[in-house]
């Protein structure tokens, strides 16, 4: 149940993202003031329209595109950077590793969203900066989990045996240790993915992320607040899309954890 619901919802979100230009009935940016604030079910606008008469279905679909693009980029960057740092920190165990893990501790004492938002406010807004600030705030989890795994994996007999046979350190790390910590990286990545999507929406909601008129779920929800009294659909659908995507990815991550790495609790 968990598995299929997770795979189904995630696949649906990715399908919506990739196929948005073909699925959307209208241009998500095309305003039509005659048709503004129409309720769901209006002919031609299945989910209704917003205050500028833009089609809500099209905006939600394009929102999926943006959310999943940001989520994917951020997960790839943090998995590579955090994974590599964790790998090296667990393997080397000299003072740079200790320094790195203290930095991780300190960074964890700042709430994730606040940190990403502050970085955005300082370095400037825009798509690239959101991905970078989310990555800067998110690498810590991988570094910690991977380091812990490496510390235990490198004590195993097969690693010790390979080292005794004279295998070089780089080869040891990437051939013998990395494949055995890869499942943890995959599990953390899937659980972080939904965290990044929700964080991006929250940051855009507060006005430090993707700026209007670009259709992002967070900024759509933020705009919907002014119309909550007479246009509930503006808040309901983008939020539902976000929650269902997060739900799907969470379930997928849970299932991956149960299958790949039952010990891991993130």
């Amino acid at each position: 149940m968990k598995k299929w619901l997770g795979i189904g919802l995630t696949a649906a979100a990715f399908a919506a993202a990739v196929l948005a230009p073909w699925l959307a009935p209208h241009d998500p940016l095309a305003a039509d003031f005659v048709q503004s604030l129409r309720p769901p079910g209006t002919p031609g606008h299945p989910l209704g329209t917003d205050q500028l008469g833009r089609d809500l279905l099209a905006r939600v679909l394009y929102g999926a595109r943006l959310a999943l693009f940001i989520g994917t980029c951020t997960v790839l960057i943090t998995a590579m950077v955090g994974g590599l740092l964790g790998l090296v920190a667990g393997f080397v165990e000299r003072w740079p590793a200790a320094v790195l893990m203290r930095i991780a501790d300190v960074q964890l004492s700042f709430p994730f969203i606040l940190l990403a938002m502050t970085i955005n406010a300082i370095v400037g807004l825009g798509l690239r900066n959101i991905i970078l600030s989310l990555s800067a705030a998110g690498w810590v989890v991988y570094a910690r989990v991977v380091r812990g795994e490496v510390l235990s994996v490198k004590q195993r007999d097969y690693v010790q045996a390979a080292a005794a046979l004279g295998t070089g350190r780089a080869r040891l790390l990437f051939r013998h240790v990395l494949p055995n910590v890869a499942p943890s990286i995959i599990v953390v990545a899937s659980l972080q993915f939904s965290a990044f999507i929700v964080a991006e929406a929250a940051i855009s909601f507060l006005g430090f992320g993707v700026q209007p008129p670009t259709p992002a779920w967070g900024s759509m929800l933020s705009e919907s607040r002014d119309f909550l009294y007479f246009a509930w659909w503006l808040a309901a659908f983008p939020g539902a899309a976000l929650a269902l995507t997060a739900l799907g990815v969470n379930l997928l991550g849970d299932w991956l954890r149960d299958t790949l790495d039952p010990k891991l609790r993130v």
Partner: protein
Amino acid sequence: MRAYVLSRVVQTALVVFLSLTAVFAMMRLSGDPVLLFMPMDIQAKDVNEFRERLGFNDPLPVQYWHFVTGALRGDFGESLRYKQDALGLVLERLPATLLLAGASLLLTVGIALPLGVVSAVRRNSLLDHVGTVATVLGQATPGFWLGLMLIFLFSVKLRWLPTGGTGSVAHLVMPAIVLAAFFSARIARLTRSAVLDVLGEEYILTARAKGLGEGRVVGKHTLRNSAIPIVTLAGLEAGQLLGGAVITETIFAWPGLGRLTVQALLNRDFPVVLAAVFLISVMYTLTNLLVDLLYGWLDPRVRLR
């Protein structure tokens, strides 16, 4: 026990010091920090004077020294917007946030803990299944969306609760629920799995075998032993609770630390931002110090390490 407490306190002091350094480093991200500390309407020729006055012409180690000594005295500079002491402004908002966080914590302890325990004890019952679905949904629902939907239901449709602001218990209800939702879902799930772990232990079998009632088995033998992972998670999530306060306070116009921080960021009022970010990190670190000290009380073995 004394050595244990002392070593934790020293570690906490170190993290607080390092987080000050991090706040200092964050200001340099933009390249030229003077741009963050200038009023918007300043003339180009005044920029250099401003730079000199704020000490941005000094060598970096000197600037760092001034920043750290200033911060330790509670001096983060003056708010650019309100022309008041930045830390004072932040501290003024602290009680509202603590009230909100306290109410959410109370909700979490009152709902999530019993739900998790009962789900584990009555495994596969209807309540367990309903609880699992509720926690999975609770974890996936973004707080700001839940907030909007609650406002729509309770303020717009039913007209039971105010949409935002402060002043009465009614104002506190929705923000506390929104802030507690995500937190409760995590805690309920972890409580369930922690209690299940302990219920499988041999000493529980022994306790049952010697004829103890179920109430004592669960209440005395199980709960205390499953408390460690729960308290750990609660401490680690405290930071996210404070992060969640940023969003919740903004939706419900709750005059706390989170809303002040967002407004300061929007106004580019960086002395206030730095003071707030620093205070939040100190609060988080202190919470985890408290968690570490709780371990010592919950599990006497920890004290010896």
